[in-house]
């Protein structure tokens, strides 16, 4: 307040010149549809996801859709749990795992996370390589080039900006919805198959596809990513309803896009192969599943597909190694910030660079099959998902951590069922792989 050195002060009256801008509130609506749940769900449709859904539709037709129905329920429940843990504790999932389980479990979890995320990063580079090879550009040029692009984009551009560009470009996946509709699928058949569970236990490929579908839709890293985004945003317990709506919307949207990727592939490749048994379309590489976009884009299907996987690949390659590095450092208390110099945060930068470089190097191994590599990375995610869910379930049921926001009976029932079912499928798949190997 003004200090009066002279006589008694009388404050001059004045009229407010301009009102403080309150347009921020009107942006709330936009923020609610572009909340962390929405962005995380978009990030779930990465290259591994696109390839998995495409191959599932091409190989197994509409029968690949029904798993998405129970997966939707599990995804919403699991994502809500992650969002709630972030909201209530204000801490990331890796920090909570460290604080609640100690160094050993944290180390194992972080090793698993690093392995899994680096493998998935290679799936992203596989997408970039596939996109370039559609245009006859060698992956030995495109992958190192995009590695550099990603590296400097992450170091110089704010991750929020990268995120926003990606979300806008993600609209390209709407083309799958249009293409799926234009392919005139047998909707009666789609509806029937979507709600008629059938598991062909004798077909190891089908079991593998199932694990990959689960792993790519409820990716373990998505829970870490979402919880960190919630913490970053500073969401409070009073915002839980809005957060739940955001998470549910995001999950449903991701599943709708996934379902249409399957439908578009089933209606084109699978149906063609049913009717042209002698000369089937063999899905061997990524460019083969671009046909699914032909009903919409015609001869530009390849171009559209290449753009889609390039966008997904570049974004996730930028986000995944970085967030993995943040998570590991958060668990172990290492300095982690992009504005530090290397000397100040050596572990952080080393892990980030290692994840990125190893991911890129894997697709440069001569003759490595890109499509199969990508789907394998999603299988690994499916195999590790039950372990992550168990850790989350233990933490979220601790009163000391969550207080009154512990899991409800229903959430526990759904999540434990997911653990048991996915765990059983994962074990059975591992068993068949071992048997096949012997």
């Amino acid at each position: 307040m003004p200090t009066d050195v002279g006589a008694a002060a009388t404050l001059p009256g004045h009229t407010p010149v301009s009102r403080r801008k309150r347009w921020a509130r009107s942006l709330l609506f936009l923020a609610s549809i572009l909340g962390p749940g929405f962005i995380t769900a978009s990030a779930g449709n990465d290259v591994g996801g696109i390839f998995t859904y495409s191959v599932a539709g091409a190989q197994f037709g509409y029968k690949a859709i029904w798993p998405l129905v129970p997966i939707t329920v599990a995804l919403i429940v699991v994502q809500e749990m992650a969002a709630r843990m972030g909201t209530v504790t204000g801490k990331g999932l890796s920090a909570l795992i460290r604080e609640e389980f100690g160094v050993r479990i944290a180390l194992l979890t972080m090793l698993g996370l690093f392995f899994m995320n680096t493998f998935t990063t290679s799936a992203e580079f596989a997408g970039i390589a596939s996109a370039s090879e559609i245009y006859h550009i060698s992956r030995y040029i495109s992958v190192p080039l995009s590695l550099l692009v990603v590296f400097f984009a992450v170091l110089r551009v704010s991750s929020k900006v990268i995120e926003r560009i990606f979300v806008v470009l993600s609209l390209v996946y709407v083309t799958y919805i249009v293409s799926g509709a234009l392919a005139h699928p047998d909707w009666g058949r789609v509806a029937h198959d979507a709600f008629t569970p059938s598991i062909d236990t004798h077909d190891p490929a089908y079991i593998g596809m199932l694990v990959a579908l689960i792993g790519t839709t409820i990716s373990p890293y998505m829970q870490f990513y979402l919880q960190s985004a919630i913490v970053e945003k500073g969401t409070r317990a009073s915002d839980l309803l809005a957060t739940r709506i955001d998470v549910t919307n995001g999950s449903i949207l991701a599943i709708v896009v996934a379902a249409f990727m399957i439908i578009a592939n089933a209606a084109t490749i699978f149906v063609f192969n049913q009717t042209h048994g002698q000369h089937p379309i063999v899905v061997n590489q990524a460019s083969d599943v671009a046909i699914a976009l032909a009903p919409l884009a015609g001869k530009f299907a390849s171009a559209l597909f290449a753009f889609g996987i390039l966008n997904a690949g570049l974004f996730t390659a930028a986000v995944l190694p970085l967030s993995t590095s943040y998570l590991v450092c958060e668990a172990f208390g290492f300095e982690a910030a992009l504005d530090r110099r290397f000397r100040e945060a050596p572990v952080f930068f080393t892990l980030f660079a290692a994840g990125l470089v190893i991911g890129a190097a894997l697709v440069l191994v001569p003759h490595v099959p890109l499509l199969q590599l990508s789907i394998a990375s999603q299988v690994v995610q499916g195999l590790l998902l039950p372990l992550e869910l168990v850790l989350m379930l233990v933490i979220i049921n601790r009163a000391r951590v969550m207080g009154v926001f512990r899991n409800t009976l229903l959430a526990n029932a759904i999540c434990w069922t997911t653990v048991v079912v996915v765990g059983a499928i994962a074990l059975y798949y591992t068993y068949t792989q071992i048997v096949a190997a012997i």
Partner: protein
Amino acid sequence: MAFRDGYLSEFVGRPAVLDDGTSRRPVGKVVDFFVDKPDDAFPRIDGVVVRTSEGERFSPVRDVVDVDAHGTIVLRNAPSLAAPGDDRTLYLIKDLFDKQIVDVDGRKVVRINDLEIANTGGTLRVVAADIGIAGLLRRLGINRVAPQLLERVPRTLIAWDNVAPITDANPSQVQLSVSGARLSRLHPSELADIISDLSAQDAARVVKQLDDETAADAFEHLDADVQQSIIEDLGADRAADIIEEMDSDDAADLLGELDEHKRAELLAKIEDRDYADELEDLVEYAPDTAGGLMTTDYVWIYPHRTTNATIAKIREIGPETEFIYYLYVTDDDRKLLGVISLRTLLLALPTAFIHKLMDTDVVSVSTDTSAEDAAATIARYDLLAVPVLDDEGRVLGIVTVDDAIDAIIPEKIANSLPRFVRHHTKKPAVAN
């Protein structure tokens, strides 16, 4: 007391045996240690928690007669059922292991991997927090498998009197007053950096431990969203106390970000009613204008006083006022007549009159001048501050050069500059 210097992790999970003079029998295993007075610089460890088949039992440290080569703890009395101390008792493993603390010396948030303990003249004390790789490896049991390997890993220890623990949010939580005192040693902008690194809950916990003035200084350096979330957790009474200590422009910015209901609640709790009214007025200005930037914390003086009388007066009010480098000369109606710098005042004859010395050609801005223009004015005329006048030429406040710089180089622009290569600004000296 038979403990030697070492690390707490070496004892956790080790067996505890009872020696009744003739024979030894196992009673359970060591799961925790406790401290009754956690506010000491190097807190004394008062006892051991032993998990027995019947549940957790407690033994005072003086009951430990021996610690053998394997780390087995030998007790002379059976551990008792009674939990020690009160709700201020700190459990070292449960409350501190794996948790975040503030490294006051290194000015960052770190995680405790292990605690170093020392037998100092018969009392066992916590002396340092191990935050490095060596601590992690020890927790993983590497010291038992390959002790020579662990020896080669450099240790990262922070002396305990440089540690500010942030205790957990459990119902029986302990508030460490020592944390607040240690955090006050940091520069406000460093403290703000640390607070921003913490979760919303931990940030509020840290602010609770600070005195109002330190908290206010740190608040001025915090982003609006962090401020808001902390205020939410602090409760209106404490928040109002802190806002009262803040510079008026920063306080108004903070209040402007809140919804009207919350703002009215906080303003009602500010004890100095004049200041509350002033803040209410300031809130109305858009943050990107001179009105939004200005502070009312300036000095105005009368033209008919001598330099001597004026200097004496400034000595009197100086401690309360941030900005005394320009003195604004006004009439009774607070209309601006001129300005005089502290330098001119000090160098002038003691008996000279202010109105003879003052510069009447004053550069000023109005409340709706944009922040950029206000900053440009300050830069063009090499000023430390520019007065903000209303239509009648009355002084409403001043925009100081530091606030002008903050306004035209917002954090977002600073963040979008090349970051990997950007050199950190030199840490300002901390006046202790």
